[in-house]
C-alpha cells in the first residue's frame, strides 16, 4: 500500500518538474497588433509548446526567455492565399487535361527554396501554395509554413489546402483543344463537380452505413470530397465582372462549396455586391488597381476598397508570387491602403481574413490564446515600407532573426 503512494508521489513530483521544464518565451513589443478584438501598447505575448499562451498586459513568468522589442510592432505571421513559389515555377502547371482534380502541389514543395526564406524574412509565415492558372482546374494547393521544417511534412499546415480553379484569360489556350472557350470551361468544371459530388454522396452514405457495398474508389476524386463537406474551399482565379459572377453562381449557388474569389480585377468589383450578399471572401492581388484595362472613365480604382465599399466583409490580399515577390505581401497591403482601403482592414487582410477564408482561423491568423505562435516583429508599422522585419517566429520557433543573420535579398518580381 505504501509503495503505491510512493510511486504516486514520485510520479506527481516528476510531473511537476516537467511542468516547470516546458519553456516559455515572452515577447514584449511596443505595439501588439492582434488582428482580434483588441490591440495592445507595450503588450506581452507568452508562447509555450508552439502556441500562444497569453496576450496583453500579462506578467512574464520567471524562467521565461524574454525577447524585448520596446519600439517594435508585433503582428500575427502574414498569410498569403495565392502563392506559386513553394516549389519550382515550372512545376505548377500541367497543361494536358483542362481539369485536373487528381493533381496537387504537395510533392513539389522545396523546403530549401531561397524564395521561401525570403518570404519568411519578409514576415510571411503561411502560404496557400497552389498550382498555376494554365488549366481550368489545375489541382489542389497545400497550406504550408514558409519555414521551420526540414522536410515537406514539417512544413504542411493542412493538405489539401484548397482546390485551385482558374476562370477566364489564362486557361483560354488557343490550341483548339478541350476547354478553350468559356463554354468548354464551364462545362468541364460542372462535369467534374457533378461527378465529385455524386462520389462524395455515395461514399458518405456508405460510411454512414446506409449502403452495404462500397462505391468504386477513384483516387482522383478523393480530395474533392472535402469541398462538399466544407473542410476546405475552392480558390478561383477570376477576372472581370462576368467571370466573378459566374464563379459565384456555380460554386456557391449551384454546388454550395466554400469559395474564395481571387484576383477579381479588370472591373470584377462590379460583381462585388453579389459576393457581399452571399458572404463570399474576396482575395485581391497582384493587381491592386483597375484603371485603363476594362475601365473607361480615366480613373484609377483601388480594387480592395471597391470590394469593401460594396459590403464584402472577408477581404484578403495576395501577391500571386512570383508575380509580386512573396516577401512584398505587406507592400501589397500598403498599396491597397494608398488606394483607399482603411489601414486596419489592410492589416487584417494579410492575417486573420485569409486564415478565415481558407478555414484555418481556428489555428492561426491572429494573436489569440490557443492559436499557433506565428509571430512577426517589425521596426514599426508594417505598412510603412521603410519598416522591416526584425524577427519571424513560426509555431514558437524563431525562423528568422535579423540579429543572427540579416536577410538582404528583397524584391524582384516577374
Amino acid at each position, binding site marked *: 500500500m505504501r509503495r503505491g503512494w510512493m510511486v504516486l508521489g514520485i510520479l506527481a513530483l516528476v510531473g511537476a518538474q516537467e511542468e516547470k521544464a516546458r519553456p516559455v518565451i515572452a515577447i514584449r513589443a511596443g505595439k501588439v497588433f492582434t488582428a482580434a478584438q483588441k490591440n495592445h501598447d507595450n503588450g506581452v505575448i507568452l508562447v509555450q509548446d508552439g502556441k500562444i499562451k497569453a496576450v496583453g498586459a500579462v506578467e512574464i513568468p520567471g524562467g521565461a526567455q524574454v525577447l524585448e522589442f520596446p519600439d517594435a510592432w508585433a503582428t500575427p505571421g502574414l498569410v498569403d492565399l495565392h502563392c506559386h513559389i513553394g516549389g519550382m515555377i515550372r512545376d505548377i502547371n500541367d497543361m494536358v487535361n483542362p481539369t485536373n482534380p487528381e493533381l496537387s502541389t504537395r510533392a513539389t514543395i522545396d523546403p530549401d527554396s*531561397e524564395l521561401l526564406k*525570403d518570404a519568411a524574412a519578409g514576415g510571411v509565415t503561411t502560404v496557400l501554395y497552389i498550382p498555376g492558372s494554365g488549366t481550368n482546374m489545375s489541382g489542389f494547393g497545400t497550406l504550408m509554413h514558409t519555414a521551420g521544417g526540414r522536410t515537406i511534412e514539417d512544413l504542411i499546415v493542412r493538405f489539401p489546402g484548397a482546390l485551385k480553379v482558374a476562370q477566364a484569360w489564362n486557361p483560354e489556350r488557343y490550341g483548339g483543344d478541350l476547354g478553350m472557350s468559356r463554354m468548354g470551361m464551364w462545362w468541364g468544371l460542372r462535369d467534374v463537380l457533378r461527378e465529385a459530388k455524386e462520389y462524395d454522396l455515395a461514399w458518405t452514405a456508405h460510411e454512414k452505413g446506409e449502403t452495404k457495398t462500397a462505391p468504386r474508389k477513384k483516387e482522383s476524386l478523393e480530395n474533392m470530397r472535402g469541398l462538399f463537406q466544407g473542410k476546405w474551399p475552392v480558390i478561383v482565379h477570376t477576372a472581370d465582372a462576368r467571370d466573378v459572377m459566374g464563379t459565384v453562381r456555380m460554386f456557391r449557388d449551384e454546388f454550395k462549396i466554400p469559395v474564395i474569389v481571387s484576383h477579381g*480585377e479588370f472591373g470584377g468589383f462590379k460583381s462585388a455586391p453579389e459576393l457581399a450578399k452571399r458572404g463570399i471572401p474576396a482575395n485581391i492581388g*497582384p*493587381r*491592386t*488597381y*483597375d*484603371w*485603363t*484595362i476594362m475601365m473607361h*472613365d*480615366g*480613373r*484609377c480604382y*483601388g480594387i480592395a*476598397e471597391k470590394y469593401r465599399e460594396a459590403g464584402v466583409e472577408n477581404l484578403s490580399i495576395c501577391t500571386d508570387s512570383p*508575380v*509580386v*515577390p512573396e516577401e*512584398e505581401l505587406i*507592400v501589397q497591403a*500598403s*498599396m*491597397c*491602403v*494608398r*488606394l*483607399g*482601403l*482603411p*489601414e486596419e*482592414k*489592410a492589416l487584417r487582410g494579410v492575417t486573420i481574413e485569409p486564415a478565415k477564408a481558407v478555414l484555418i482561423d481556428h489555428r492561426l491568423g491572429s494573436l489569440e490564446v490557443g492559436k499557433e505562435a506565428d509571430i512577426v516583429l517589425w521596426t514599426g508599422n508594417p*505598412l*510603412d*515600407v*521603410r*519598416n*522591416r522585419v526584425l524577427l519571424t517566429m513560426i509555431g514558437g520557433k524563431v525562423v528568422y532573426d535579423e540579429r543572427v543573420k540579416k536577410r*538582404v*535579398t*528583397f*524584391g*524582384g*518580381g*516577374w
Partner: protein
Amino acid sequence: MMRFLIAVLLALVQDPPKEPGKEPPKEAPKPAETKKAVYTALLGGDVYTVTKGVLKNGTVLLKDDKIHRVGASVDLPEGTTRIDVTGKRVLPGFVAVNARGLAVHPASGKVADALDPFSESVKLALAGGVTSAHVELGGGGGFFGGAPASGGGSAVVKMTYGTLEGMVLLEPASGSLGAWITGGPSDRFEIRENFQKAREHVEKERDFDRRRAENRLKPNEAPPRALPAIDPYVKYLKGEQIARFPSGDADQIKRALELVNDFKFKAVLTNVVEGWTLPEEIGRARAYCTMTVRTKVHADRDRSGPSGSSIEQAAILRKSGVKFGIISITQNVSTGGVAGRDLLNLPLEAAFAIRGGLDEQTALESITITAAEICGVDTRVGSIEEGKDADLVVLDGDPFDYRTFVDLTFVNGKLLYDKAKSPYFSHLKTGK
C-alpha cells in the same frame, strides 16, 4: 464641225488662273519681344530645397520658367498668382535617371526629333511628380519591369505636356560604353586604343596652349585636330560628356572601373546590383551608380565572396561616399494594375532604400539633385534654388510615406498637373 470650232476656241483659252496660296501661317517665333513676366508664388508649404535643408512655412516665387526667390517671407510683385500650399510639402520635380522609351516615338537618330509631348505617358509621369528623365530611344520597361537593352540616342527630357518648347534639357545626355562590358576582346582593345589616342591628343592640346601662351609657337602652326572617331573619347576625358556602363554584377563593375581608373573620366555604372560588394573601389574611382532597390538576385553559392543583391546596397554605397540615383522597377510609367513598381511611385523605390538603412536626406537626393548630377543637368534642376528651372512638385505628405500623393506639378514654371482636376486620382480617399 461646230464642235470642232468650239474645241479649237477652248484650246486657245488659257486655264483659269490658279488661286494664290491661302493665308500664310500666322505665327513665326518672334525674336526678342519684351513680354510681361509671369509670377507664381507657392505659399505656406514646407520647402524641401534638398541642398539647403527644409524651409518650414516658406515661399517659393517663380518668374516665368525659373525659380526667382526662396525664403521665409518674399515680396510678391503685383499680379503674382498665389497658390496656397499650407500643410503641404514643396519639392524639386523628381528626376528619373533611366527611362528608356518615355515620351518618345520608337525611332532612331536624335531624341529631340522623336519626342512625343502629347503622349499620355507624359501626363502620367507628371502625376508621379517626375519632371525630367534620362531618355534613350528604344522600348519601354514592360508590364512588370525589367532591365532595358542598351543603345540609341540619349537625352534628358522634360515632361512639357503639349509643347516641344523647353522639352529637351540636354542632348546627348550620355555616351554608352556598353561595348566595353558586353563586347569581346577586340571591342575592348579598340576602346582602350581610342582612349589612349584621345589622351595623347589632349596632351598635345595642352602643350599647344602652353606654347601659345608663351609665344613659342612654330610659324603657321595650327592647333592639333583629333580624328572624328576619337572625338567622343576626348569629350569623356575633358568631362564634356558622361559615359554610361551597364554594370549589374561585380565582374562588370570591376571591368568598368578598370577603364575609369586608367583614364579618369566621369562614369555612371547603370543598373548596379552587386555594387555593395565593392563600395570602396567604386568610391575611389568616383564613379556614379544607378540602381533599382528592389532588384533581387540570390547569392551565387559557387562564389566564395559576397554576391547577389542586397536591399542595403544604397546604404553601403553611401558609407563609401558613392553617389547614386534610384529608379523604379519599371523604368517607365505603367497603368497595368500592379501598384508601386513604376515611375508613378518613384519615391517609393527610394523608401525601400531607407528600409535598407539609407538616411532620408540621401534618399531624397537620389531622386533629385544626385539624379540630376548623374544626367549632367544639376546646374538646371534637382533642387529648389534661385536661378534654377521652375520644376516643382507639391506633395500632400512625407515624400517617403507610402500614402503620399502628388498634388501639383510644375515644369518650366507652368502648372501641368493638378490632382484635383485630373481624373486619375482625384476621387481617391487614401485610407489613412
